């Protein structure tokens, strides 16, 4: 009796390890692959794919090959549906995603209920980690990091650059009035107040506006020195054009990602008009690679796999997040949710050693407390990194 039991368990154990060694480990890749957000959703997913390729080439995780199962989060409802499918039908060990904050918030809810880890590597909204979910981890910088960096940049670089004391600058904050613009503007105000800056006007507007001339006139008459705009593409173009045409030339304009980081915006506005405009965003490609080791290898791998240069920094940030997470999972024991959580909680990576520059350590609400944005400037039609000093490839150009 005892012997037969022992035999059975041994056989079962052997079978189990045998299947484990042969099987691949599945992870979900949940991004908007079609619809309005497809372009940057796909760009983000490419970063994850390159990370997985590298990990597999180096022997996989815990000796097993990583297989990505795609889920198309075309809208919030489908994000939920696809998260369910990945978890219950595909039996993925964890989900990686998701570029859009709204999709991430919806889909991570499903993962939380199923107790499956959800690794967010691109959505910036505060609510993603702000809900205190147990299985949601975020590697990328957030709306708050953006507000923080912009204020830091004004105090450390912009004010001295234009020859004024930070507290003497008149700052105007304008933002599109959905949750993205409103939350970034809120953080800008908060950090500006802490730094003792003088915010003379804060104004929201609908992103679908077709005229900003009144807003421009208002900023002009208040004598605003530094304009902070958080916006999508059309409203970025509209503001920069109308400000230029109304003869409003503030000492600095600082955009918050979105439309400000995109080449088509610069082409639409005109390289002359956008010259000197600053921008805070995820790490981009024109950056000092001493601060972002591995960036060149990533770009090469990207070009080889997709036959073109990266279309935005989204791929890079997803790549860095995924690479670190998969490396940690490799060192962990097993793929159960608890094992994955335990593995990623041990991550402790400092600044200046990843391809995105920022380090990784999960803090409160499983947010990466070392995530940071960078300051960029449009110079001669290109978006070059100018802040922080260690990552800069060119000095910030400011007119006194």
């Amino acid at each position, binding site marked *: 009796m005892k012997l037969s039991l022992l035999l059975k368990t041994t056989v079962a154990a052997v079978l189990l390890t045998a299947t484990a060694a042969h099987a691949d480990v599945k992870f979900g890749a949940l991004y908007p692959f079609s619809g309005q957000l497809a372009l940057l959703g796909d760009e983000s997913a490419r970063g994850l794919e390159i990370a997985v390729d590298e990990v597999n080439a180096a022997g996989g995780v815990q000796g097993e090959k990583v297989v990505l199962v795609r889920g198309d989060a075309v809208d919030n409802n489908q994000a939920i549906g696809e998260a369910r499918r990945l978890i219950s039908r595909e039996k993925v060990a964890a989900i990686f995603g998701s570029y859009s904050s709204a999709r991430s918030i919806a889909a991570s809810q499903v993962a939380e209920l199923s107790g499956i880890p959800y690794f967010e590597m691109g959505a910036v909204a505060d609510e993603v980690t702000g809900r205190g979910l147990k299985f949601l981890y975020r590697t990328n910088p957030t709306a708050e990091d953006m507000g923080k960096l912009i204020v830091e940049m004004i105090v450390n670089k912009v004010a001295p650059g234009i020859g004024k004391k930070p507290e003497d600058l008149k700052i105007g904050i304008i933002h599109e009035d959905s949750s993205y613009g409103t939350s970034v503007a809120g953080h800008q105000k908060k950090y500006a107040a802490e730094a003792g800056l003088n915010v003379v006007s804060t104004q929201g*507007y609908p992103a679908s506006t*077709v005229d900003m*001339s009144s807003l421009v*006139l208002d900023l002009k008459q208040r004598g605003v020195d530094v304009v902070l705009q958080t916006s999508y*593409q059309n409203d970025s173009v509209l503001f920069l054009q109308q400000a230029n045409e109304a003869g409003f030339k503030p000492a600095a304009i600082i955009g918050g990602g979105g439309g400000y980081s995109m080449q*088509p915006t610069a082409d639409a506005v005109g390289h002359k008009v956008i010259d000197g405009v600053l921008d805070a965003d995820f790490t981009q490609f024109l950056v000092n690679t001493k601060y972002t080791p591995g960036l060149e290898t990533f770009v090469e791998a990207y070009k080889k796999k997709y036959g073109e240069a990266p279309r935005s920094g989204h791929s890079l940030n997803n790549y860095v997040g995924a690479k670190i997470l998969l490396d940690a999972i490799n060192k962990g024991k097993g793929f159960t949710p608890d094992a994955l959580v335990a593995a990623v909680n041990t991550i402790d990576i400092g600044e200046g050693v990843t391809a995105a520059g920022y380090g990784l350590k999960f803090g409160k609400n499983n947010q990466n407390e070392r995530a940071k944005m960078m300051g960029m400037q449009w110079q001669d039609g290109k978006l070059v990194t100018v802040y922080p000093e260690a990552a800069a490839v060119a000095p910030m150009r400011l007119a006194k």
Partner: protein
Amino acid sequence: MDTILQLLANGLMLGGLFAIVAVGLTLIFGIVKVVNFAHGEFLMVGMYLTFLVTRMLGLHPFVAVIVVVPALFLIGALTQRLIIQPLMSARDDHIQIFATVGLSTALINLALLVFGADIANTPASGLRTPIEIGPVRVLSGQIAIFVASIALVIGLQLFLQNTAMGRAIRAVAQNRSAAQLMGINVDRIYILTFGIGAACVGVAAVLIAPLYPTSPTIGTYFVLTAFVVVVLGGLGSIPGAFVGSLVIGLIDSFAGFYIGSDMREVAVFGVFLLILILRPAGLFGKQLNLSHVSP
């Protein structure tokens, strides 16, 4: 004082912009009695056509009018013939409205498929040059839009009042059955009117494309205001749409400066509601016969 003049100029220019988009909408509404929710997408299609013509042939955007206006006429006429007309006899008029909503979604997604979500830039070709008139500064392209909107309104009025075709169109609008009894081919008039309405938005597209970057959702930016303007002016009234546009443009401009840009829409829609309460038929509206058959 200079500020007020500048705000006035901005408001008028914005009004011209709304007017040129709204004219076609109010024409279709007044005659065919279909609320065309795909109107903004017609504008979007026209803007992409302008973009393609200017980019590929290197012509001035205004020259694109030769291609865009006939193309939009065709799209409008086909929409009426293939989508609206089969639904004309439907038991419920609202079905046509839903059909145009469907068309709108289909066109947006088609544009996403063909052009992607990125913006397409029609070269400004000097239309973004600021022109200073006294203390006031406006763009040459804005003046072109303003002048064209006036010309379009007057032209349409003359056409409807003085030509045989125009009279036939008005007859159909007044009483479809009586018009049919008088020997007017009603179906043809509807197709023609829808085509003309769409052609008007084609004119708008050519003028707007050099000033605003084109994207698949650009139509939605204009169309809500166009609807407000049409209702404010009196449904189906072309001069009404023009005056309504100027009113909305001016409110937008002044409220944006004096009340704050976040309160702009509150001011616009507040005034809109107020006018509707006081004059339910709109500024220039008569009691409209909204039925397709005789009253």
